[in-house]
């Protein structure tokens, strides 16, 4: 059984008479330890699909099953708790809490789980070490570079040892050099810790590190490799 199963998922948004259907009977499986990228034109529904898998949104119809749990059937409260325990979410940059230090930011997900104080410390230290920022634990986000901020964001996503880490354009705001570092980090986490990744991106280089590259087009998922230049053209449209 796949770690993530998306079965015939439809997502519709209704604006009066007008109905948009960014996801039209989409099905998808992600295996444990896989690294999957998801591309597609702007507005094609990438974030929508990602958010369904992360359990912060619900499909109009269809099922999302993660590790055997049909998350589409959980109550909002259950879902929140499930996210805390099983999902790591990497946002676009600038999504750290500015009034908390790097350490405190990374600790946030652990406060929701039954960890002792010393256990939390140990895990945060490990996560920060994994992203190479042990020496920045006491820094506030404004004292970090964009790339470092994003690495703290990644540490926060992996600190609770989730089933899946989803990332929505994790390198979207970064320069080439920082992007390179982040990609290296993601790959390393995937190979060394076996973290399962689903990464939404516009950037062919980011997609390039994935073992499997998916593409959303007109509400349908195309499970095929996508040449870099095609992606670039779609983006320019």
């Amino acid at each position: 059984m796949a770690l993530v199963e998306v079965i015939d998922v439809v997502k519709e948004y209704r604006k009066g008479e007008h109905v948009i259907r960014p996801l039209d009977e989409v099905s998808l499986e992600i295996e444990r330890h896989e690294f999957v990228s998801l591309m597609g034109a702007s507005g094609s529904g990438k974030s929508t699909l990602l958010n369904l898998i992360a359990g912060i949104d619900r499909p109009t119809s269809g099922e999302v099953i993660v590790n055997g749990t049909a998350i589409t059937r959980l109550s909002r409260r259950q879902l929140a708790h499930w996210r805390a325990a099983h999902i790591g979410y990497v946002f676009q940059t600038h999504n750290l809490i500015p009034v908390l230090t790097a350490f405190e930011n990374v600790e946030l997900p652990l406060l929701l789980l039954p960890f002792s104080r010393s256990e939390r410390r140990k895990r945060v230290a490990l996560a920060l070490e994994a992203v190479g920022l042990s020496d920045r634990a006491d820094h506030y986000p404004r004292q970090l570079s964009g790339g470092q901020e994003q690495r703290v964001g990644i540490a926060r996503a992996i600190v609770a040892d989730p089933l899946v880490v989803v990332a929505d354009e994790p390198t979207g705001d970064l320069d080439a050099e920082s992007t390179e570092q982040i990609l290296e980090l993601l790959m390393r986490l995937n190979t060394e810790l076996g973290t399962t990744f689903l990464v939404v991106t516009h950037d062919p280089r980011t997609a390039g590190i994935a073992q499997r590259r998916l593409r959303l087009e007109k509400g349908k998922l195309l499970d095929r490799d996508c040449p870099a230049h095609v992606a670039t053209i779609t983006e320019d449209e």
Partner: protein
Amino acid sequence: MLRLLPWEYGVRNLFRRPGRTALTVAALTLVLLMVFAALSFVRGLNLSLAISADPRVVLIHSVGGGENLESSSIPARSAALVAASIPGIQRRYGQVYVSPELHLTTRVYVDGDEQGALGVIRGVAPTALLVRQQVQLIEGRWPQLGEVAVGRLAAVKLGRPDEALAVGQTVMIEGRRWRVSGRFAAVGSALEAEIWGPLDEFQQALKRQDVSLLAVTLGPGGEFGEIDEFCKERLDLELQATPETFFYGNLQAHYRPIRLLIWSIVALVSGAGVLAGLNTMYANVLGRVRELAMLQTLGYSRTALVLSVIQEGMLIAAISALMAAAMALWAIDGTAIRFTMGAFVLRMDSVAVATGCAVALALGVVGALTPALRVMRMPIGESLKAI
């Protein structure tokens, strides 16, 4: 189980926009200062009336004179009659606790004052100190011939500086000159606004033989019914008895409109406070839509986030309340206020402080709750896209 956001998050958020927080704290402090002022007014008034009443004291006055003791008039000989006829009245060392008193409001002229001002006068016999147990000399001595003792707030009641009624000064009352021989306190009761002198001398000056009332203290086994019965039997004297607590209870009711007015002012001013708080908390929360959505994504419940925003509102309110209370204690507490019946002191007592702080926290909660709930109603995915 509800997992809350770290406490530091709420605290440090206050310093995110220090200017805005400071402005809100300033506005709320002002609002709460007014609330504290109103509260200490009500407390002062209530306390002065409540303390004035001794549960063991019964006032005997003319029939129908209970509304306004100054218009009451009873024969002077009633004092001796009451003392001899009612066994329930307190006695000790041969003294019976019956205090005949002449009570009136009249013009009092302090030295160098042509106009005079209305003062509350009480002509008393030596037994007054037995019955009026709250009264205590704080300076000088009790009056003898041609002398008066003044209450701590008598000068305030006259609208004159304290020095005008200092010991050794003289005042003109009813065409006679009196020397101030002493000053007294009465644990904050209404008596503190009065000027006391020897009963017989006031009677002479006023060309009156009657007294306004008798104040009597009930003994250990004494009951109000005994006195009441005596008054009803002696139709010739036209007496009526009222427990002192009842009398001041009536007075408190008399001031109900004033209290109502003050409470409405408190409500209005608090409304302004809520607006100030709302404004800030709205700005605070709307500037953090994405951050709050991100916290929800991590698994924090809406309840936890709403509580965290409320915590911020309460912190702002608590800081404001602290400052306002300190300012009120320093500037308002103890200020004497004159009003028709006498004078009393504004009191920032524990009740006023507690009530004011409760108002403050309510302001904080109300101010924070509305914006918090509004933001929490948005779907997470949408909020994550907010700037």
